[in-house]
């Protein structure tokens, strides 16, 4: 998106790659050189309106659609929306639930965004998330129950991320080696991974009469309620700290490291990046592996932070929602935190209003937001650019003293 949407003024965008041609290749070794290189990267001028306006337009459209749907159900929009706010940000339990959902969505949103920055569409977060959750559960089951949490949690988290990374690396490698569309491969892998895990849990490793694994022995992440008693009863847990760290790490990686620079270079101009010495195939599969690891981290939230076991189907669309989160967050790690909060609020709010309108109302709104952002971003950018061009044209016309200048 960021790549596709900005081809209009690619002049500025291609500069970093063209400039780095002589310096960028593998020879760069010292950190000082790397830092100098990264700092020399011209900043892409981001108009504040280009960043903020499209999501705002999208939210307005979603609000109108929501009103219409509520009216079609014979309810008053104002009372439904106030119930939605009360059930989410109106009490500590609601806030805790929103934070819990934010955690998973942050992870899957980051997963999509990281890949998107490299020009890749990772539609496989759903499978990677499930694989991560299963990895966490497997590690938790195998570790001895007496293992101290400070040792067990990192092990389980790393296994979860590793499991997600493997599921992500496969489409990345197939794309790098054979040019296979990562969109199709990740979708197909979703089905394969979910079927495989379903088989594991239903045939090999389950509590009879259920579709979940036995309770894990070690590695449980403490609940927020253990420290802040007001969150009692909610699923919020300290995995949210890991998600925040992941957002900061992704930001650092993308904008302050050489590999992050290469990743973005590949996303903006793969051919130029290749010419500049970037090993594009390697960037492709490494990025997909990292993306999968981020999605896998999301599985920790459910398995180690909430239930204490892996349950078939726990992902429940959170992987796909990550696409919406990344879109609204403009593929920026900090934007994603805000977008994850928004969609978590919608998701929890759906449960709060379910008594009077179907909770699917908020799912519809989520889809409308995605569609509206996807359509509004290029359109608003086009309009803004047209406006800027006409202003500058009339400015020049005025300077030349030609008639018709409005300055």
């Amino acid at each position: 998106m960021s790549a596709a949407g900005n081809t209009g003024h690619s002049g500025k965008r291609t500069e970093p790659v063209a400039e780095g041609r002589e310096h960028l290749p593998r020879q760069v070794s010292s950190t000082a050189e790397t830092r100098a290189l990264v700092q020399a990267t011209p900043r892409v001028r981001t108009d504040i309106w280009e960043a903020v306006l499209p999501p705002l337009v999208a939210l307005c459209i979603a609000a109108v659609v929501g009103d219409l749907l509520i009216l079609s159900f014979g309810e008053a929009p104002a009372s439904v929306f106030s119930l939605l706010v009360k059930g989410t940000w109106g009490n500590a339990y609601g806030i805790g639930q929103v934070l819990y959902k934010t955690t998973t969505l942050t992870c899957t949103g980051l997963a999509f965004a990281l890949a998107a920055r490299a020009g890749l569409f990772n539609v496989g977060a759903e499978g990677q998330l499930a694989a991560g959750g299963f990895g966490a559960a497997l590690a938790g089951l195998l570790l001895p129950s007496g293992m101290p949490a400070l040792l067990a949690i990192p092990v389980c988290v790393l296994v979860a991320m590793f499991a997600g990374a493997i599921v992500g690396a496969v489409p990345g490698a197939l794309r790098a080696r054979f040019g296979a569309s990562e969109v199709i491969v990740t979708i197909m892998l979703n089905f394969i991974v979910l079927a495989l895990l379903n088989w594991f849990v239903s045939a090999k490793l389950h509590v009879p009469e259920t579709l979940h694994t036995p309770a894990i022995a070690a590695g449980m992440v403490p609940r927020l309620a253990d420290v802040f008693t007001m969150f009692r009863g909610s699923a919020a847990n300290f995995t949210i700290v890991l998600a925040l760290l992941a957002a900061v790490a992704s930001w650092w990686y993308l904008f302050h490291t050489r590999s992050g620079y290469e990743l973005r270079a590949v996303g903006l101009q793969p051919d130029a990046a290749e010419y500049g010495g970037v090993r594009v195939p390697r960037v492709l599969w490494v990025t997909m592996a990292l993306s999968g690891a981020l999605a896998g981290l999301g599985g920790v939230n459910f398995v180690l932070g909430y239930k204490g076991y892996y349950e078939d189907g726990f992902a429940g669309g959170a992987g796909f929602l990550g696409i919406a989160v990344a879109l609204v967050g403009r593929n920026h790690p900090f934007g994603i935190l805000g977008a994850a909060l928004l969609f978590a609020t919608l998701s929890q709010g759906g449960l709060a209003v379910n008594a009077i309108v179907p909770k699917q109302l908020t799912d519809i709104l989520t889809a409308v937001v995605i569609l509206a952002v996807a359509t509004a971003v290029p359109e608003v950018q086009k309009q803004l650019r047209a406006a800027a061009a006409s202003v500058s044209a009339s400015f020049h016309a005025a300077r030349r003293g030609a008639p018709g200048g409005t300055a």
Partner: protein
Amino acid sequence: MIVLIFVLQTIRIAIPYLLAAAGGVMSERVGVIALGLEGLMLSGAFGAALGSYYGNSPWMGLLGALVAGAVVTVVLAIATLRFKANQVVVGVAINLLVVATTRFFLRLVFDSASNSPRVPGFGGEGISNVLLASFVNPVVWLGLAALPVLGWVLYHTPFGLRVRAVGEKPEAAASLGVAVTSLRFKGLLIAGALASLGGAYLSLDQHQFTDSMTAGRGFIALAAVIFGRWEPVRVAVACVLFAAAETLQIQLQGAQLIPSQFVEMIPYLLTIIALAGVVGRSVAPAALGKTD
């Protein structure tokens, strides 16, 4: 006898795949990625149940499916053709939108969270054999004809020539006077109609709509499109192959030879293998995903 049952069962299972895959070929041939097939099918299934229930006739069901499919197609077309939105994102959003919307209306119209009441389907009650009875259904014949007819249209009519031109080299087509966007819109409408009829087959065959009843069939159809390299006849063969694997699984269910989950994976695994170039390089229409 057992062979005959196998063949009939395979055809029955293949029908929704054949229709949706025909839609997928059409959509991708005009340059729009067919990720929304699942949503189009599901909207068709719901529209069919709605039409059949209120019109008290399966023919009204087909009409309902076409209307529902057209509504979703128009949303998809506006987003991808008018606003040039990213087609992968739009496809995913369309699928989410239809799942949520059908659930919402399931509760609004039928006051149920899981399924509609029983709706009229295409007869066949007088025929004792369940498998033969399903061939009274005109959608079955539509499904069998869809891909061969589409193949003929694509390669032997002026319309088909324009479709292929628009999917491969839209600039060249435009320079020869083809109205590219309008042709793409027509192609998408045809694709939407075919996919929604595939969904209609499901709900009319089972005499009710159940929540998310397409269950990944849209993606299997997309798999067949890629596996069949965008050639209608090859795609039809892929659909039948996938359906045969599913039939085999149903027949072997008692034997427990392979877990069902592994049979489910077959089409998806085959697609990945096809994409990796093992069964020959598959080349997508050149303008696929680049409608700007």
